[in-house]
């Protein structure tokens, strides 16, 4: 409940900041997406059992590497001169470390989680 109020407050603030500008409707859509995704995240994550919390962290960590999309756009669209390209390339490299390293490490961990082999006790 408190989460809902906080999120509504944030949304109101952001929309107020954009009020009167031509991008208002886009802003509202983006904030709407953000709020719904946060709730979805709460629902999804609260169902993950504690024994999988480490792979959950490293796996969600890899997802936060999604910022690679922003890095690729900054680098590839060639606007803003060489400084943007340099910043973009560094961003692409570090975001790739986050994505590749995160997913591989998670896979390595999850590969180790094994059920009891055939025989089983009692």
């Amino acid at each position, binding site marked *: 409940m408190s989460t809902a109020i906080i999120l509504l407050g944030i949304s109101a603030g952001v929309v107020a900041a954009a009020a009167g500008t031509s*991008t208002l409707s886009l802003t509202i859509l983006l904030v709407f997406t953000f709020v719904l995704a946060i709730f979805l995240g709460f629902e999804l994550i609260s169902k993950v059992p504690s024994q999988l919390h*480490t792979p959950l962290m490293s796996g969600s960590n890899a997802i936060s590497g999604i910022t690679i999309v922003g890095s690729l756009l900054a680098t590839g669209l060639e606007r803003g001169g060489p400084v943007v390209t340099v910043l973009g390339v560094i961003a692409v490299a570090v975001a790739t470390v986050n994505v590749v390293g995160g997913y591989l490490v998670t896979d390595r961990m999850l590969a180790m989680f094994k059920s009891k082999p055939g025989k089983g006790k009692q």
Partner: protein
Amino acid sequence: MYREYLIGLSYIAASILFIFGLKMLSSPHRARRGNLVSAVGMLLAVIATLSYQGMSFGWILAGLMIGGLFGAISAVKVPMTSMPEFVGLYNGFGGIASLLVGWAEYHAFWHDSWGQELVPLGRFTGVSIYLAILIGGVTFSGSMVAFGKLAEMISGRPILYKGQHIVSGFVLVAVAALGVVFVLFPHLHVIYAVVLVGIVLSLILGVLVTIPIGGADMPVAICLLNSYSGLAACAAGFVISNTVLIVAGSLVGASGIILTIIMCKAMNRSIANVLFGGFGATAGVQSSGVLGEAKPITAADAYFVLEGASSVVFVPGYGMAVAQAQHVVRELGEILEKNGAEVKYAIHPVAGRMPGHMNVLLAEANVPYEQLVEMDAINPIIETMDVAIVIGANDVVNPAAREDEKSPIYGMPIINVDKARTVFVLKRSMASGFAGIENPLFFKENTRMLFGDAKVSIQALVAQFKET
């Protein structure tokens, strides 16, 4: 036109894949496929982005190759015991990437209008750029400090100094004030200086908020930083109006917050107490006086007790990771099972240095996950266990949390090993645990101390079983 349409659809598909990937993480046997599904989503998002009109690939390929190589090599080489610090490290990289995206977007805007009046940056975009830089910066430097502490490159003890809250508070206010200036006057060329100072201050802020957090509280710090890295990606998504960044970032942000709350509950402390408390820096706060005498036991005597036990529960802690004892623990567990005992591994939510740390180590040693039980599942039946073996855990089995109202950890849920018929505590010496709190468990009537390195002690027990 069609191209943009397809790219947009691909982003939606990528978001769906992320959601399904996380959903599949809720059961151990589907989790690995879930991770793959999520990775496919990421690949799809990258391919879609690369197919925008007018992309040039030279620099991108260089960045992808360098990052991919470093990421892949480190991911394959890192030992399981070092997992907490590597998750922290990758996390920091995600944060700095968001900072750089925010900075690059601002620079492109600034550069394009050089020599003329700056086109006013939309207020919303301004706020987003500043947030991407701020949260990204805090995530990066905070994660680097956490990495250093977990890898023991810097002291794991909380670093406290006089006026700490004032200094941190001042930097926070300065960062916020600069943000307001930035958003209100984006059309001034000198505002670039504000952005640069903002970057530096956000990096400093990340260090300031992480150094007072002690090694044993790192699970909370790592969860929170994980959440920040998602929110930074979210802010970067607002900057470039990209929904896949917003959705994926929010999912991670929510995940980190939930884990933070779970960890704090497991320690019966508020988030504020963990972040600002400097827990464990004030060693020597003793509540009760003489506790009695600890009773040592030899491996040979311990063997006789274990030999006759029909149920044994192992309670691992960070000490098991330090001693790298998970493989011998599993070996002893198997021997006990062959001997007819029922064997369980009870895991406290905050045992180790990140949530689920012990589960990963025991899984590495091939312990089937059915044998791993949570604190709430073991406590009601712990009275029926013949032997509880505590390996390198201390505060999470400290009965003072239940009995001694003056104890700093009073109220923290613990695994009640002291209620088992016999308790073996494997420990190097009588030194108190991380929090500097005396542990009455060591002096209980049914407790026996098996001194020495945990791995060596268990090897000795295994050897006893093999001799006979």
